[in-house]
């Protein structure tokens, strides 16, 4: 089982996490390589989403939790005291299961992060809008309605807008938590296509909404079951020749 690689973008070391005394993650160790799509998959309640939200410290908003272990981004512990959390979250963007455009226009949504980061220059803002929407494969569909309400977009467009919104900050890592769970197959295909483009420049971790999606998009995949990392293999071998019986059962659809 591969858990350590050379020069990982993210190194997760012996991470255990409890919420209200209940263990959600149990001694998880794995390395996430740069410029690739890594999938965390497995049945619901396995701790995949929690692990994602630990990487950009989004679970700081939750009370009554207990974390042990380390999460290193480029070798730096993201939980080290003195870490600038806002900057961490700009480096590690996140897209949620349900697309949630912020109130306001398409343009305002894309520029929400950059503006908070202090980007005031009009022409730079314009560049960000065009680049982000292009990268999220949404530009052609919304270029004429940038100043229309974001809530008027379709569900699939909204989700790609949320991806663009994260990309606007030029993050190094992109965390995707079941980004296509609410989308139709065509929108799903568009999102998956854009991932293939994006991984040239970004380190992507995705919690896919199905094994099939994991197999389609993942360069590496990790199987989680009830808070534990069961198996982690480079490439797509985990889907064809899983080592662990539980992985095999899940991948072949015996449970899930």
């Amino acid at each position, binding site marked *: 089982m591969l858990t350590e690689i050379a020069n990982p973008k993210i190194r997760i070391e012996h991470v255990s996490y409890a919420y209200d005394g209940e263990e959600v993650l149990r001694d998880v160790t794995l390395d996430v390589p740069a410029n690739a799509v890594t999938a965390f998959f497995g049945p619901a309640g396995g701790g995949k989403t929690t692990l994602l939200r630990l990487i950009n410290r989004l679970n700081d908003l939750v009370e009554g939790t207990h974390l042990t272990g380390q999460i290193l981004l480029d070798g730096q512990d993201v939980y080290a005291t003195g870490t600038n959390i*806002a900057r961490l*979250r700009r480096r590690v963007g*996140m897209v*949620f299961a349900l697309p*949630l455009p912020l*109130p306001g226009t398409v343009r305002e949504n894309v520029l929400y992060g950059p503006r*908070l980061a202090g980007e005031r220059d009009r022409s730079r803002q314009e560049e960000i809008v065009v680049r982000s929407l292009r990268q999220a494969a949404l530009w052609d569909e919304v270029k004429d309605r940038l100043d229309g309400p974001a*809530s008027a977009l379709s569900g699939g467009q909204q989700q790609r807008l949320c991806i663009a919104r*994260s990309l606007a*900050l030029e993050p190094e890592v992109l965390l995707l938590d079941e980004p296509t769970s609410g989308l139709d197959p065509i929108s799903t295909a568009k999102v998956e296509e854009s991932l293939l483009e994006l991984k040239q420049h970004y380190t992507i971790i995705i919690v896919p909404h199905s094994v099939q999606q994991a197999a389609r998009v993942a360069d590496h995949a990790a199987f989680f079951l009830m808070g534990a990392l069961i198996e982690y293999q480079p490439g797509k071998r985990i889907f064809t020749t899983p080592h662990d019986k539980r992985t095999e059962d899940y991948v072949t659809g015996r449970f899930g």
Partner: protein
Amino acid sequence: MQEISSRRYVVQRIGFGVLVLAALLVVLPILLVVGAIILKGIGAINWEFLTTMPRDGMKAGGIFPAIVGTLLLTLGAALAAIPFGVGGAIYLSEYARDTWLTRAIRLAIVNLAGIPSVVYGLFGLGLFVLFLRFGTSILAGSLTLAIMTLPIIISTSEEALRAVPMEFRTVSASLGGTRWQGIRNIVLPQALPGIITGVILGLLRAGGETAPILFTVAAFFLPRLPQSPFDQTMALPYHLYVISTQVPGMPLQVQYGTALALLALVLSLNVVATVIRSYFRRRRQW
């Protein structure tokens, strides 16, 4: 079978009838009150009545200083109560954890709302007029009204803030926003209609109160406009009380005219509030 369902139908009709009646009973008093006051008071309303000083021991002339006084008191109460009320609501909804302290604060708010208004008046007399030496003044009266308004503003604002889905805060945080930036940019604008409603409701109540201003600001008869926050002023509710009970031989029409002016002022503020609210609500999108 046929018979049962037709009997149920009749029962349902009777049930609906009772419910409609109950709803009508709510409308009836307000129609009667407003109707009576308009009928008896409209004759007193004219430009002179609304814009001149009272004369002849208030039996003649107008109620201008009382109108101005009530507007000033309400404005003063708003200036004092809105920052503290909304600020408190933001703290309770967005920052406070569930501790004995926040529970104590909530308990205090609930109890503040239940205190009789005359007690606020005495409190204002003790704290603002005497202890802080503001004297009987617009400042003391406004602050007293503000304190009385606080619980309403805090509880309605907190409710409005909590109604904004948690996910907006999470999204803002995930894009590198601090907690305050999320509140300032997303949560507050979304909660604004509810907050405005609470503020207006609170201020309407304050503007129509007599007891809290009785000892803190209201002048029995002061036929000039106040010059500073430390002046006394006449105010509509107290003026109405005075001319209804303290001045023998007061023409009834003047009393009803004053009541109508107070009612119109309060209701028109209400309409303004509704317009503002619906404007902001149309811009809300969740």
